[in-house]
């Protein structure tokens, strides 16, 4: 007897819907035969049998929603005379092989936001759809805006961020490129020099290393080199940083790389409202913008103000949680971890202020300094490596501009100084965590 289990169909899938059974009890199945269709948040996938046998029972009904990965969904009776199948321990006995994906961000009370007009209603939306809506709205508004990248059109985006844009805007404005990052990044900059407003999607920022010459040498520097004549209004965007278990070449945080470069604007939003509002601002901005998203946040839902033209200003940090005892700075996915850490610390009587940097260049030094003058303590958090990182920059500014206010040496939380490993345990050890942030805060508050 072999149990067929609910399969994981992507690095981040935890549950799915059993859309359709293609087998019934009594059917004979063979390896490779499609037995069911399963819906994930990104796609409907076919599931193939690995073992041969006769279906003795379907354990989950067609249409079932939210079936957890590894739940038994059917039972096969093996054919007499075949090899014994690998024994599958019951799900409860099995260790989770992948690191726990970060749970949804703390959804506590929505803090007052000066950017949001009083009386505004809010709607729930994923970061993925917020980004999509930002592009759609800007494309409706300005015919010079177009989207270009690998799999953005017919496939609807490798991570489905450009879903339905091809249908609305056609293949003139939503352009599938060959796998040729250096070429299409340069082409995008050229088009921007001619006055168009390209959005260039990198399937992930890891692949933009093929194109970094055009981003820096062409996009960032030409305005200066031309004495102000040639501008490049262009947005380079895509997921940045570590996804789940995709190993060293696919798990790199480029925040500090681009934040180093004059001529670029660098944005790394955390929630859906900022993703949408900042992307819209980025598209309208006349400068080249590097827009760093995070794959692990794409599926996360947040509340977003239901206003017609939601814009968030570039270059302004946001205090996500006011506090008196310590300042924690973070950006992108790390904001969620910092907020969790702050909640935990509150339980221990430490009142942390969490600043979401949102824009890394220009960096909102004033907000950070203002906060440190109040709390007298600083912990920086980033997903990337420490050396020459965003945290190093924040610490340098704070020590030079608010040295006398500091009651403890500023501390950085970041990835360990090694490429990211594939193994689940090493990956978890390498990346920043809520625990590491809590520990760092305790160190600077001498607890």
């Amino acid at each position, binding site marked *: 007897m072999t149990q067929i*289990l609910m*399969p*994981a*169909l*992507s*690095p981040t899938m935890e549950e799915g819907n059993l859309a359709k059974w293609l087998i019934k009890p009594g059917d004979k199945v063979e390896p*490779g035969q499609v037995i069911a269709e399963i819906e*994930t948040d*990104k*796609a*409907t*996938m*076919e*599931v*193939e049998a*690995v073992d041969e046998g006769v279906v003795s029972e379907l354990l989950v009904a067609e249409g079932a929603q939210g079936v957890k*990965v*590894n739940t038994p969904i059917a039972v096969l009776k093996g054919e007499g005379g075949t*090899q*014994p*199948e*690998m024994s599958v321990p019951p799900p409860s006995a*099995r260790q*989770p*092989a*992948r690191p726990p994906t970060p749970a949804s961000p703390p959804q506590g009370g929505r803090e007052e936001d000066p950017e949001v007009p009083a009386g505004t209603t809010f709607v729930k939306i994923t970061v993925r759809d917020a980004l999509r809506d930002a592009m759609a709205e800007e494309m409706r508004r300005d015919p010079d805006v177009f989207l270009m990248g*690998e*799999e953005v059109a*017919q*496939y609807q985006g*490798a991570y489905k961020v450009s879903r339905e844009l091809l249908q609305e805007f056609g293949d003139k404005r939503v352009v*599938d*490129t*060959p*796998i*040729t990052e*250096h*070429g299409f990044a340069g082409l995008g900059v050229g088009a921007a020099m001619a006055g168009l407003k390209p959005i260039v999607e990198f399937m992930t920022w*890891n*692949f933009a*290393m*093929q194109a970094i010459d055009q981003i820096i040498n062409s996009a960032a520097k030409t305005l200066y080199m031309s004495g102000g004549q040639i501008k490049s209004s262009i947005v380079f965007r895509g997921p940045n940083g570590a996804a*789940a*278990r*995709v*190993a*060293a*070449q*696919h798990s790199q945080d480029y925040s500090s790389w681009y934040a180093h470069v004059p001529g670029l604007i660098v944005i790394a939003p955390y929630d859906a409202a900022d993703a949408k509002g900042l992307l819209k601002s980025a598209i309208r901005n006349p400068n080249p913008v590097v827009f760093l998203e995070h794959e692990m946040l794409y599926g996360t839902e947040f509340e977003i103000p239901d206003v017609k033209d939601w814009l968030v200003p570039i270059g302004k940090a946001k205090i996500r949680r006011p506090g008196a005892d310590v300042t924690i700075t973070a950006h992108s996915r790390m904001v969620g971890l910092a907020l969790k850490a702050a909640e935990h610390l509150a339980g221990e009587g430490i009142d942390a202020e969490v600043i979401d940097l949102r824009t890394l260049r220009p960096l909102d030094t004033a907000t950070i300094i203002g906060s440190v003058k109040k709390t007298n303590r600083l912990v920086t958090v980033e997903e990337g490596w420490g050396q020459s990182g965003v945290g190093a920059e924040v610490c340098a500014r704070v020590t030079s501009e608010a040295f006398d206010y500091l009651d403890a040496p500023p501390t950085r939380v970041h990835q*360990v100084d*090694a*490429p990211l*490993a*594939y*193994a*689940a*345990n*090493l990956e978890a*050890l*390498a990346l920043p965590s809520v625990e590491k942030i809590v520990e760092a805060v305790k160190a600077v508050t001498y607890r």
Partner: protein
Amino acid sequence: MGTTYANGAHAKATRDDLLQYYRDMLLIRRFEERAGQLYGMGLIGGFCHLYIGQEAVVVGMQAALKPGDQVITAYRDHGHMLATGMDPNAIMAELTGRSDGCSKGKGGSMHMFSTEKAFYGGHGIVGAQVSLGTGLAFANRYRDDAKVCVTYFGDGAANQGQVYESFNMASLWKLPVVYIVENNQYAMGTAIQRSSSETHLHRRGISFNIPGEEVDGMDVVAVREAGLRAAEHARSGKGPILLEMKTYRYRGHSMSDPAKYRTKEEVEEMKARHDPIEHVKKLLIDGGHATEDSLKDIDREIRAVVTASAEFAQASPEPDPRELMTDVYL
């Protein structure tokens, strides 16, 4: 203009050859099916690109090589590693991210290597391995050691600029490299006609004076014959050569690709009419070299090897936490 080889008549493969190819291709197929299953159970994480359908390419090419010849490819690498004779247990344990994996669990599906089998990876950045393979061939020429480097890449990778920068240097300096473009007709969801102005990829070397040949990549014997000619060309000092293997992947691009960009009929047609394993099976049975029953025995042996590798891969412990900071520098 480069010379173009005509597809030669089928050299007669011996009974032993065919049985070996059957076994080698079946190992890859069963191994990949099991990897897919372990992925579904959450025992393999991240990206996992299966090689099912393309088995004849690596098995035929490996049969054309000499010991010491190097192999390098991209992330769809499990088949290449099995073909070079790497241990299925160590490959499966790398897939589960355990300490007995061939990269100690640090590399995963896309990043495995074996100095012993001259397998140089296992690379995640599309196109990068083409320059690396050209560099391996540069070292062969430098040392004059008569080795050839087989450098694999996909139809999608064929559009990366560094491929052509490498072609130029390889031809200019007569480097002993055999470029194999595995044209499985899709790069993720992009059919080749949608990405390439010249879809006959064996012609992509013409302006660099690199001869090219189109090969039926679903026919292991045809692959071996073309591979023998190509390896001889490169080894004899004539420089690089490009083989375009027409092949097909049955599964999605990676485990999370629903593959909605092609029809079920297209996939079924390939499986039913062009399957590389069924092809050899037919040659064996029609030639009186084997029976359904004797092949079933091989099936059973292969299944046992694969089942054992899966058990090994689950029993192997996670890497020691101290491994986190090793291998960053020598």
